[in-house]
């Protein structure tokens, strides 16, 4: 135990480890809040699709040798998020199929671009990092930390101040629209926010594991809680705890950060599923 504590204090003397912790918690908070809405809107897989699109965009930015790739990645991802969320009823290819088509295509295009315009000699290493976020959270610059914090604060504020509208639009879009709340506007806002958060979360767990960060806290919370408020708060707390636990464990055990956070979330989900079974029997 003292050994573990010593290892931790040793690691936390490095600023990049502290950055990783701060950004990890901020991103986990954002993804959990959005995840509640996405799961309930039946868009659980959009995070996965968008993260692949973001991967393609990053490859494009690398190929074009753009230094601050966020300037390209965020707008492209946002555009596709709007397309997927808003296209909804009228699109020729619907929902899950559209996400599948887009995510596979952008993954392929991105990988092709990385090979055609290699930025370093270790392409498969680069791809692995982008997909699994193996080390990127540990290589954050001060600027990236502030940007992550700023964006997380913005998402949090949006969620707090629009909480009741988000509930109404998510629960019954038709009723909300019919009584004068513009569901379209909130879906648009949601699409943009999701795109921003997906790009943010890529630094933490990499593109492949974003879906886990989005949906696990919400699903776990839904096992136990029966009100929207309860689920939202519980998901946020769970997500932060899992991120914290994942980062600390990955330092102690020397495991990849992203995968460790996801496994913490998975363990949490299993625990809450059992808890849910026990409590439903009591309240049903």
């Amino acid at each position, binding site marked *: 135990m003292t050994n573990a504590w010593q290892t931790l204090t040793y690691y936390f003397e490095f600023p990049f480890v502290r950055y990783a912790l701060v950004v990890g918690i901020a991103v986990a908070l954002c993804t959990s809040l959005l995840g509640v809405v996405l799961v309930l809107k039946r868009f659980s897989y959009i995070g996965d699709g968008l993260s692949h699109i973001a991967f393609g965009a990053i490859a494009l930015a690398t190929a074009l040798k753009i230094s601050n790739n966020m300037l390209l990645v965020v707008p492209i991802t946002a555009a596709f998020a709007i397309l997927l969320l808003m296209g909804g009823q009228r699109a020729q290819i619907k929902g899950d199929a559209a996400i599948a088509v887009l995510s596979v295509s952008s993954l392929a295009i991105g990988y092709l671009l990385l090979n055609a315009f290699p930025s370093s000699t270790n392409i498969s290493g680069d791809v692995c990092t982008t997909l699994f976020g193996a080390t990127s959270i540990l290589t954050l610059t001060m600027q990236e930390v502030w940007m992550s914090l700023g964006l997380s604060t913005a998402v949090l504020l949006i969620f707090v101040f629009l909480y*009741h509208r988000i509930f109404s639009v998510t629960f019954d879009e038709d009723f*909300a629209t019919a009584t004068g709340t513009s569901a379209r506007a909130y879906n648009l806002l949601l699409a943009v926010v999701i795109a921003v958060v997906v790009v943010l979360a890529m630094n933490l767990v990499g593109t492949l594991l974003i879906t886990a960060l989005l949906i696990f806290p919400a699903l776990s919370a839904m096992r136990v809680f029966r*009100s*929207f408020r309860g689920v939202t708060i519980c998901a946020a707390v769970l997500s932060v705890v899992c991120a914290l636990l994942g980062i600390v464990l990955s330092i102690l055990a020397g495991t990849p950060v992203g995968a460790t956070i996801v496994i913490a979330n998975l363990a949490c989900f299993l625990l809450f599923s059992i808890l849910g079974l026990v409590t439903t029997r009591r309240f049903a």
Partner: protein
Amino acid sequence: MNILSCENLTLGYEGRPVVTGLNFAVGEGQYLCIVGENGSGKTTLMRAILGLQSPMQGQIITHDGLKKEEIGYLPQQTLAQRDFPASVYEVVQSGCLNKSGRRPFYNKQQKARAREAMARLGITEFAKKCYRNLSGGQQQRVLLARALCAADRVLLLDEPASGLDPAITEELYSLIRALNQEGMTILMISHDLRAAARDASHILHLANRQLFFGEKEAYLNTDIGRLYALLEATA
């Protein structure tokens, strides 16, 4: 005083008309019952009035400054939202959202209104319960309470009695009647012509076109009215 009128209205999906040639007007405080077979365009009409769907032809005009924020709506019950975690109170309270303006949170009046609506529908005891765990009749009452929170002048109801047992249906109709007597304009889609014949002031009969629009007494003396009543009674 008319608050809503439809002029030469055609509605449909993807270029195919569902219902054509609608010409009618609803006055403040009236109780309009929309009747007709399944697929005759009743729900389509209601969705168009609510602005969820735009007309293919013609127009829907609101008069006397009727705003979306004054309309309440009880949708047809669906199986959607089955696993949505929401307490009864949260659902009912969301009906007040249209009175929020730019305020991010509900104020005291809105909260009081939600409690009042719950009390009126006898669901106060379920306030903290999960919406999805309620029976069909209880869910319907929750949605009606939400509609009451939203409705200041007009209440639109789509098959409010479907899936309810007779005693609860009666309760529901008497509540709607009471609301109408308090001055609320009611637009209701119904299969139940007996209720329509008793409570409604006007009838709109659709069969992909407008078969009849006018006062209830006139309707009950037309051939379609008599035929429909007969069919309903034997069904």
